[in-house]
């Protein structure tokens, strides 16, 4: 293994990966301009945060793309739930990565190596989102995209194939839940999104938001109570169907 930690592959291994990738079917987009996502399915080996920070410390430029690939969906989803706007979420994610790169370039290698990467990246993203919110009038923050959809929503990997109308129904309900989340007061929203949508621990959220863990915990609880009430008010209360589904 090279100092980069994971990027040194033999040609034998490369051809093996490419073969598996080609066998898996055509890449979703063929144009060379979209090379960025080509061959992603199999060539992508899951990289954990520790491997990433070690590689970033050794070779920031050579590793940064792997970091973006590992985190782009999460930071985008985070921005999407904070702002309710796909366009804002895209800009927030991009901005966060650019800032993260510049910060990593300034840090000494030991600091990069021991970085709690996930919490740190969410922290950078929160700061970007807050700075943007501060510089624009609240009325301009849309809760939903103009066409009422969230283009960025990925289909849930379907275990038991759903009927199209069920998917549509769920998608629609999901959009409405998302819209309700976006109405949460700011002090609760980030905490609830980080805890229940991104799945961070209270300790991590405390780092991300720069608050004591106790404050985070109580904000999450209040936020969830608020959310339940708001879902009820929107006619999206957790009803008997959900209860049945919960037992299934």
């Amino acid at each position, binding site marked *: 293994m090279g100092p980069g930690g994971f990027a040194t592959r033999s040609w034998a291994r490369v051809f093996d990966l490419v073969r598996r990738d080609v066998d898996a079917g055509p890449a979703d987009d063929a144009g060379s301009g979209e090379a960025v996502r*080509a061959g992603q399915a199999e060539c992508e080996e899951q990289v954990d945060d520790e491997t990433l920070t070690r590689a970033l410390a050794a070779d920031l430029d050579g590793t940064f793309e792997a970091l973006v690939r590992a985190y*782009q*969906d999460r930071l985008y989803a985070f921005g999407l739930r904070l702002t309710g706007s796909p366009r804002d979420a895209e800009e927030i994610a991009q901005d966060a990565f650019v800032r993260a790169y510049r910060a990593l370039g300034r840090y000494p290698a030991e600091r990069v190596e021991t970085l709690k990467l996930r919490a740190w990246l969410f922290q950078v993203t929160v700061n970007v989102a807050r700075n943007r919110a501060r510089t624009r009038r609240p009325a301009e923050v849309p809760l939903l995209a103009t066409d009422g959809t969230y283009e960025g929503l990925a289909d849930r990997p379907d275990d038991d194939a759903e009927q199209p109308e069920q998917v549509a129904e769920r998608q629609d309900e999901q959009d409405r839940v998302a819209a309700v989340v976006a109405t949460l007061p700011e002090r609760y929203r980030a905490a609830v999104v980080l805890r229940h949508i991104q799945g961070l621990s209270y300790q991590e959220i405390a780092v991300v938001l720069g608050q004591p863990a106790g404050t985070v915990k109580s904000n999450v609880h209040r936020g969830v109570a608020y959310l339940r009430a708001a879902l009820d008010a929107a006619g999206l209360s957790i009803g008997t169907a959900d209860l049945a589904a919960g037992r299934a």
Partner: protein
Amino acid sequence: MSANVDRTRDLASARALHRRLRRLGEATAPAGVLGAVLDELGLAERYLSLESPIGTLYVAFNGGRISGVAPAADDAAFERTYRARTGRSARRAEEAPSGLLSAIRRHLAGETVDLDLDLRQLSEFERAVLLKAREIPRGEVRPYGWIAREIGRPGAVRAVGSALNKNPVPLLIPCHRVVKSDGQLGEYAFGPSLKRQLLASEGLDLGRIDALAQAGIRFVADLAGDEYCLPTCRWVRDKAPSEVRWLPSVAAARAAGYRPCSDCRPAAIAV
């Protein structure tokens, strides 16, 4: 009793809410995010292609530094290969950095050109192996064991083979000029037939190499001199059979009173 029912219902409803919220985390970033970030940071890698003795050759670069070379059938195939090898993506360049293409062409034609190669992702050992392979002149070959000995790791012959298989810039670092110590051409990352093709294009007499390997000849001494050489060493490769002495081993060369050539340094490769 009724408290239990309430509790069960609360738990189930908490789980249902949790499930709904987790689903909101399943968004996929738009395809443009990665490209936009890399462009803004100047990290985007580009590639171009040129014709070579083994077909279309793709060259990826980052700034003026060459970060990858591979033969490929088309752009998509190279992009897949590059990504699988480096974990990074490269896109076709609008135009080549000035001088890069002609430098590569001159290099492939046998001129000595100082190309800036990106070998950062390799270990020190791997780098040492590749830099040593870079010293092998066009039209000549050296055994794996020769590299191992020259970099001070005579026991690491197999590791030399693995390191050569990681060569990020084949052809520019001529790992195809490294062969087995018995004179067989051996393996190549892109297949043994491409290796033959490449070596032939560099003027190597493959018929002679094969015949010597088959006859068990490992060294050649010029009858007019007192040194013995590897068979492709420039001092002996063009000699007529009547001008040389064929030698099966270092021991035989020593016994005949020859000393190792100081150019191809054949000693100790196969005692």
